[in-house]
């Protein structure tokens, strides 16, 4: 793999991301939604804290369970995971589809770059943009830190979960973008696949027996939930890393196919 070529591609993609309005529009709505959910969670938490503090003498256990991670950040990160279903296809739809539609693929694929350099360059640039968006939400944590005690370990674990979940969804979005020349089709396909993954997670709640176990094992949200609790489970790490690799690998196969589809 050509590392300097991959780095050049990341730089090019980031320049394009930050030069186009989609990043700013999407960033605005992402932060608007996350800000709204953070604010409502925080207000609810503070109201509850006051109420419980008044009844502290009667129910000391309840007061012990009440903390910012469980009441503010865990619900926030759970909602943000759903917001990602909308955000990710917008971030990834352009990546490969636009190269093919505009004809720039003809230059890109005649440069001495391996398919892995191209795919990793594209993936890492989308991941960087996503992490930049996510970094803005750190303001909520810092603000909360001034008001009440924050479990920073659990919070950082939640962010690790968000990055892994984002990486997984972005790899799937990139795969969708490799299938078509049309950005809209890439976005719709990406969104549909992400929705399907989310629904699989819900389906396991409806039944019992072996299928429920299978659904649970493949459900992406199930493998995200532990992180929001502040728990790092090796199974979840392996799941997300495998998920990312699997979809990047599928994307590579799609890119390769142009060489044998003679």
């Amino acid at each position: 793999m050509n590392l300097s070529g991959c780095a050049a591609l990341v730089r090019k993609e980031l320049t394009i991301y930050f030069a186009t309005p989609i990043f700013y529009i999407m960033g605005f709505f992402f932060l608007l939604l996350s800000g709204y959910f953070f604010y409502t969670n925080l207000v609810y938490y503070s109201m509850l804290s006051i109420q419980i503090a008044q009844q502290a003498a009667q129910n000391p256990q309840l007061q012990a369970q009440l903390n910012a991670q469980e009441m503010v950040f865990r619900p926030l990160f759970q909602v943000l995971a759903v917001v990602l279903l909308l955000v990710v296809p917008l971030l990834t739809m352009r990546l490969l589809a636009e190269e093919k539609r505009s004809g720039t693929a003809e230059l890109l694929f005649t440069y001495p770059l391996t398919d892995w350099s191209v795919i990793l360059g594209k993936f890492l640039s989308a991941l960087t943009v996503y992490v930049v968006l996510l970094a803005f939400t750190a303001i909520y944590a810092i603000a909360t830190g001034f008001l009440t005690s924050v479990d920073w370990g659990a919070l950082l674990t939640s962010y690790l979960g968000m990055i892994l979940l984002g990486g997984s969804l972005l790899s799937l979005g990139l795969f969708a973008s490799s299938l078509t020349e049309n950005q809209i089709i890439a976005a719709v396909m990406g969104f549909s696949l992400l929705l399907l993954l989310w629904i699989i997670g819900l389906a396991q709640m409806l039944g019992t027996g072996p299928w429920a176990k299978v659904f649970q094992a493949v459900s992406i949200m199930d493998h995200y939930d532990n992180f929001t609790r502040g728990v790092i489970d090796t199974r979840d790490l392996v799941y997300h890393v495998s998920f990312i690799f699997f979809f990047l690998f599928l994307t590579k196969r799609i890119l390769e196919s142009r060489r044998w589809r003679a």
Partner: protein
Amino acid sequence: METMIEVQDLTKYYGATCAVHRLNFEVAAGEIVGFLGPNGAGKTTTLKIMAGYLPPTSGMVRINGYDCVAQSLEVRSSLGYLPENVAIYPDLTVTQFLRFAARAKGVEAKAEKAEIDRVMADCGLEEVRNTLTASLSKGFRQRLGLAQALLKLPPLLILDEPTIGLDPSQIVEIRQLIKDLAGDHTVMLSTHILPEVSQICQRVIIINRGQIVASDTVENLSRQVGRGDRILMLVKGPEDQVAAALRTAPGVAQVSGQGEGKFLVETGNGLDLRPQLARLVVEKGWDLLELKSQEFTLEEVFLDLVTEEEPEEES
């Protein structure tokens, strides 16, 4: 001499449509070869296969000793490619785009600036270095396409219509630039501008309907295609009598009067009738003002080869 391009039995189908059929040719290192053919002849397809962008349906293409399919990366490292329609990322400036192209082609970080400055100077891009490529005129976009192909000075340049959209002075500069590359670099260029081929290329490959119809130097092709020599004469005398006298001269195949005393005399294969014709005119008492041999132009060669092919294909 070392072979830079080796094409053997190259065939390419798009679905059921055959774009290139069993193409065979070789290009030696350091040669400048013009690739000609009417629209839809298969030129661009062949160049795309050579550049490693399209796979062939069958056959083999070797560039610099590497196979285009099995050793695609080595092939792509050996060439600079200017596509027919230069598409460039509209959100990047000229410098940003060239920086990306340079790094993607493996130009070292410390050599990057000098390399970009060199190609910008060669292609006249300095004045637009900070302009977004979306705002470039067609001519500048074409120059930028050429500039990225010239980065790192690859041993082989594949240029699909390099001077299209350029202004006349820029065309002259770019043609000179391509000529200067000969010797150290191999250039394969396709174009519709036939005088360009005569001026730049040492050899011409003409394809029609996916097959090679001629491959030789422009001079040799002119000789082969001409059914004989052509002689242009300027004679002061009664035009109908002059024409009749020339027609009766032995070895003359055809005479066409072009007005104002000009006659175009076509002769049989390999015959130089200039001395006999000069004597004939003088003996008749007319004044011979001009007498010169005229070669067939590349346009005529091209039209001759391409139109000759069609009845054969149909039969």
